């Protein structure tokens, strides 16, 4: 990659990204308003005093009586100034709600992603090195098992095993309630809480990366340049590391880049199972409560994330693969 092209590339990509995000915002808006039921009726229903006038009053207050295109215009104008609206249910600005929850989700997905990538590539490489042996079979069976098992079930089983039977790890939450830990102790406490949900979320992706790494390693191992390396007397370990693995990782990077974005969305289930206070759970609660502004805010945040991860992947790709031009 030519470093001098980088600023121009970034500028162009950011403009494109902004257009994409804006389009997503508009799509989300229509999608949510296409669903039956509105927040006013839910709130009115829960308050018990649901007469037509009260409902009308709530709708006026939330701006739901305006024509759809006016609502859209107000919303898009808000998003452009980073004002994501106000949650009447939680009596808080949506942006504040999301920013409160985002770090927890990023911590969870980041940990799960790192775990999936490291272990997946390691296991995939090991399996490819010993193709046809018992180690390969064990890794393949493990990977297929995690690939085929539903996330929430893995989560429940892990809780049963590590929390209920062994009582090693906490089964829910992000930190011990009322412990008021500080410093290293607090970090360790969060790490203990993080372990099970991150494992649950990461195992599926680990399986995917292990399978993918194994397949591409085997494919690359047959290529001519690997033979060239052997012909010039490169020791076997170095052949694998420098020649096979580096080339085999290219498709893994592409795949991981796409999934890094999905991971944020995929955390909804795990956050619910482990009561992890992230935006996944926020979205789930907002959905049940018909809390439109929060739901749209979460969608906005996750779409920004996906777009950013894609940009990051492209940059990484340009660094790793000299054939890719940033243009």
């Amino acid at each position, binding site marked *: 990659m030519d470093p001098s092209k980088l600023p121009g590339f970034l500028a162009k990509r950011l403009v494109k990204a902004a257009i994409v995000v804006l389009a997503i915002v508009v799509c989300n808006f229509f999608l949510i308003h296409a669903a039956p039921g509105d927040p006013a009726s839910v709130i009115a229903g829960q308050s018990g005093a649901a007469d037509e006038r009260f409902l009308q009053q709530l709708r006026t207050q939330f701006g739901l009586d305006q024509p759809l295109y006016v609502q859209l215009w107000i919303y898009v104008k808000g998003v452009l100034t980073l004002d994501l609206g106000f949650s009447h249910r939680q009596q808080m600005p949506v942006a504040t709600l999301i920013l409160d929850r985002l770090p927890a989700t990023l911590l969870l997905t980041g940990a799960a992603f790192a775990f999936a990538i490291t272990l997946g590539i390691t296991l995939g490489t090991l399996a490819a090195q010993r193709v046809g042996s018992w180690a390969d079979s064990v890794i393949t069976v493990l990977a297929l098992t995690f690939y085929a098992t539903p996330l929430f079930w893995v989560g429940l089983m892990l809780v049963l095993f590590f929390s209920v039977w062994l009582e090693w790890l906490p089964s829910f939450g992000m930190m011990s309630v009322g412990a008021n830990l500080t410093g290293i102790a607090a970090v360790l406490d969060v790490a203990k809480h993080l372990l099970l949900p991150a494992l649950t979320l990461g195992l599926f992706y680990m399986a995917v990366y292990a399978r993918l790494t194994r397949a591409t390693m085997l494919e690359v191992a047959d290529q001519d340049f690997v033979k060239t390396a052997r*012909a*010039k007397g490169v020791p076997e370990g170095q052949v694998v590391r420098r020649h096979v693995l580096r080339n085999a990782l290219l498709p893994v990077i592409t795949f991981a880049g796409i999934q890094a974005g999905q991971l944020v969305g995929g955390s909804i289930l795990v956050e619910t199972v482990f009561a992890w206070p992230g935006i996944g759970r926020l979205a789930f609660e907002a959905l049940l409560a018909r809390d439109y502004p929060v739901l749209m805010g979460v969608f906005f945040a996750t779409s920004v994330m996906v777009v950013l991860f894609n940009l990051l992947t492209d940059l990484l790709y340009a660094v790793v693969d000299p054939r890719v031009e940033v243009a």
Partner: protein
Amino acid sequence: MSLLRVEGLTVALPPGGDRPHAVEQIDLTVDRGEIVCVVGESGSGKSITANAVMGLLPKTLPRKAGRIWLGDTELTAQSPEQLRALRGSRMAMIFQEPMTALNPLMRVGDQIAEALAVHGEKRRARDRVPELLAAVNLPDPAALAKAHPFRLSGGQRQRVMIAMALALEPALLIADEPTTALDVTTQMQILRLVREIQSRKGMGVMFITHDFGVVAEIADRVAVMQRGRIVEQGPASAVLNNPRHDYTRALIAAVPHGAPAHTRAPVTTETVLEAKGLAKTYSRGGWFGARAVVKAVHDADFTLRRGETLGLVGESGSGKSTLARCVVDLVRPEAGHMLFHGQDLRPLSRADRKPFRKRIQMVFQDPYASLNPRRRVGDIIAEGPITHGEPRAQALDRARDLLRLVKLDPGAMDRFPHEFSGGQRQRIGIARALAMEPELLIADEPVSALDVSVQAQVLALLAEIRARLGLTMLFITHDLRVAAQVCDRIAVMQRGAIVEIGPTAEVFGNPQHSYTRALLDSIPGRGWTPPVF
């Protein structure tokens, strides 16, 4: 004592192969300062022999018997680690495919430096790499060392491979078809380079090839292999001019001799196709990025008369395939006229074009990629006529006749393409084209993926069909010997333009354009006339 001695080498094939041994009882020597060519068709065991010497045989191909010495080291008695230490230092190897033989993610300088580093010469790498790149005549070695392989042409990459192989001045260089994937002019440069370096350093070279022209160009001694055995071995001049074994004779007889065939369909003055001012430009980018524009075809006017064969020769990237694809409408030219019997085809819509498609058919280069692997041969051949409205039963009947015409058993109808060899698949490809009863056949490198004896059979078949059906043919090839044998007239293409066009004998006998002369000078073994038996 010889530099390399192979004695009684036998390598097993996995069970279920067409023969029990990949190579059997191979005896071969290479002396210092000598180039030994190992010749044979694909599957004859040439590469297995080379890999056995390097200790690079895959586990599925174990050595059953035989011993190999390099100088006074017995290679077959060395541990894997000792063999590894010898590879790259005392013996080195270059491969056929320069496009894939270099690690795409490493700078070429680093790849050469790695060859030095793994043999404990890391400190010398900084000075040696530019030296080595200069020694293989690459321009601006310092800048080139920092380039990644994809920036280099095929010829440049092969030079880098040679530089890498020479890094530690090995006593033995094994070259496995190093010029097969290159254009003729580049091939000649690489052959000269190997020759020059070999004589300068006094290396022994084991040169594997299937091309007798290359043998005539470079060999001191020749070993001919057939089905895993060496059937004839001797000094180059003896084997080339006075071959003793039948198989060697057959191979040499199959070399295109460059003389026109005798049976010619009468060429009339009626024009079938006339291309005027065709232009095709490929561009990349746009919208946000800068545009990169390649003029693939421009200034390529030609006419084809009924019954004649026009050869389109040139190197890769010269635009010959693009021009052919314009004629069959696989590529839309953006300007010019293409008059087929006086009717301009270019402005026609898809529907208006359809009746003409039948009359212009194409045979493709790669017999492995050009047939749908999931369809039966009969369906492949009959598909065209059926889409043009012929009843299915009748089309299948005709497919059977066509298989007979291309000398395949009609029983082939119900089999799948993978059950056939390359030459047989190319026959199927020809039958598929003929099924449409075309008057104009476009053959895009129809024999360049085939072994020389199969190539001769397919060429003979094409000549026979052409004479029988009175076909007009546009024959694309990079092999000038083939062109000379098949074509009535020759058009030489360079960078998208036809630089010279004329009757075959004139173009070859008295080339006007400097590029044509360069091409002719690059035919390997042009000083050798294959003996006639």
